[in-house]
């Protein structure tokens, strides 16, 4: 969870409609749609809450099971758009330059990122190759591209017919990217190989390292409830 803003727990009370709402009501860093109450149910225990009163930097958790509900950040979509764009450029670099260089008994070889997946095909494992490519390159790239489209539409206040479809693909795919897991795998491999050969990190290694940090930042900055409230609001 990354938030540079102050984080405060919001207390809940029950209003006349029987919905549980956040009690803070000052206009400081106001949520543009705070006037329209919008209930959501906790994904873990089904209790109903209203998160439309969250102020900038505040996050809400379920009072019964502690599950995360939503966080409101005033410039969330600008931030996510900028981070996604940078991450996409870095992923492009990470795919096109040597990732790791190896020197062993006078022999040299270089590995690129797509080769991590492609070399599995040449060893007769197309299914595994497909999965690896998906987890580390394709799914993150698709999520970032669609995220740029979604945040672009939200930031410029425009509605498009494909917006709900884009949102659905983003929130379905995002739990299937394994960027940070792969990067830990890279570090483990480097330590393993460095015992028998000389290894050098290429340009793509550093690009992918920065990419994975930005990707995790973009994913944790993106709030499901707030994104969909904005998409719905644009469509009205």
């Amino acid at each position, binding site marked *: 969870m990354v938030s540079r803003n102050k984080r405060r727990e919001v207390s809940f009370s029950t209003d006349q409609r029987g919905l549980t709402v956040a009690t803070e009501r000052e206009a400081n860093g106001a949520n543009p749609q705070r006037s329209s109450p919008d209930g959501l*149910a906790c994904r873990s225990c089904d209790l109903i809450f209203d998160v439309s009163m969250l102020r900038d930097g505040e996050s809400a958790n379920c009072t019964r099971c502690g599950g995360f509900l939503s966080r409101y950040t005033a410039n969330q979509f600008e931030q996510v758009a900028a981070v996604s764009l940078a991450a996409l450029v870095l992923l492009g670099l990470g795919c096109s330059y040597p990732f790791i260089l190896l020197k062993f008994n006078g022999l040299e070889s270089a590995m690129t990122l797509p080769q*991590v997946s492609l070399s599995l095909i040449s060893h007769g494992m197309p299914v595994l190759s497909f999965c690896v490519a998906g987890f580390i390159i394709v799914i993150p790239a698709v999520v970032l591209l669609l995220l740029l489209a979604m945040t672009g539409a939200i930031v410029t206040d425009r509605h498009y017919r494909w917006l709900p*479809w884009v949102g659905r693909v983003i929130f379905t795919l995002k739990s299937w990217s394994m960027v940070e897991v792969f990067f830990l795998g890279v570090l483990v491999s480097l330590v393993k190989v460095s015992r028998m050969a000389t290894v050098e990190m290429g340009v793509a290694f550093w690009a992918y390292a920065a990419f994975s940090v930005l990707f995790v930042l973009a994913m944790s900055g993106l709030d499901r409830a707030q994104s969909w409230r904005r998409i719905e609001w644009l469509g009205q």
Partner: protein
Amino acid sequence: MSNLQPTAASRGLACCHLCLKLVSQATHRCPRCGSTIHSRKANSLERTLALLMTATILYIPANLLPIMITDQLGQSIESTIVGGVILLLDMGSIAIALVIFAASVIIPLTKLALLYYLCWSVRRGPPETVRQRTAIYRVIEFIGKWSMIDVFVVAILVALINLSNLLVIRPGPAALAFAGVVILSMVAAESFDPRLMWDRQETIDE
């Protein structure tokens, strides 16, 4: 308590699993995102158990078959997941051995065992632990993909170490089986519906 803090189900509402919109349970398609609306995940327990059992069975070949084959100077050495960890310990890479052991043995086995327990607890679990069980579910959801490390390490070594006849590393069938275990148990965790545990809690309270 259920009067003060209503659940969506108790008001005839359902929360869209994808966009979190609250709609009437009679709705078929979410008006906001277009997903199919279910008050609870469809056939949650049956699906979770079926996926769990498949993952458990697949975990056996994942451990018995070689995950990586090293061809060095005409000689082939096969290594299993646990064999690889022991080899790392022999070489003195204790930290790396621990990472691989945690990711490939401890995490998947704990995850499978805890998911079986959660499925069992929906009907028979002690009601006072429902909050802790929900916390367990969230940890399982978060930790699942970290098991994939060893598969990635094999894929990287295969791509990196390919030095003509001198030294070649090939992936073994266990790499595919183990990737299957991780993916199936991730889908199993996604199919489990923690709200079922709270539903039973509420019928006890009343």
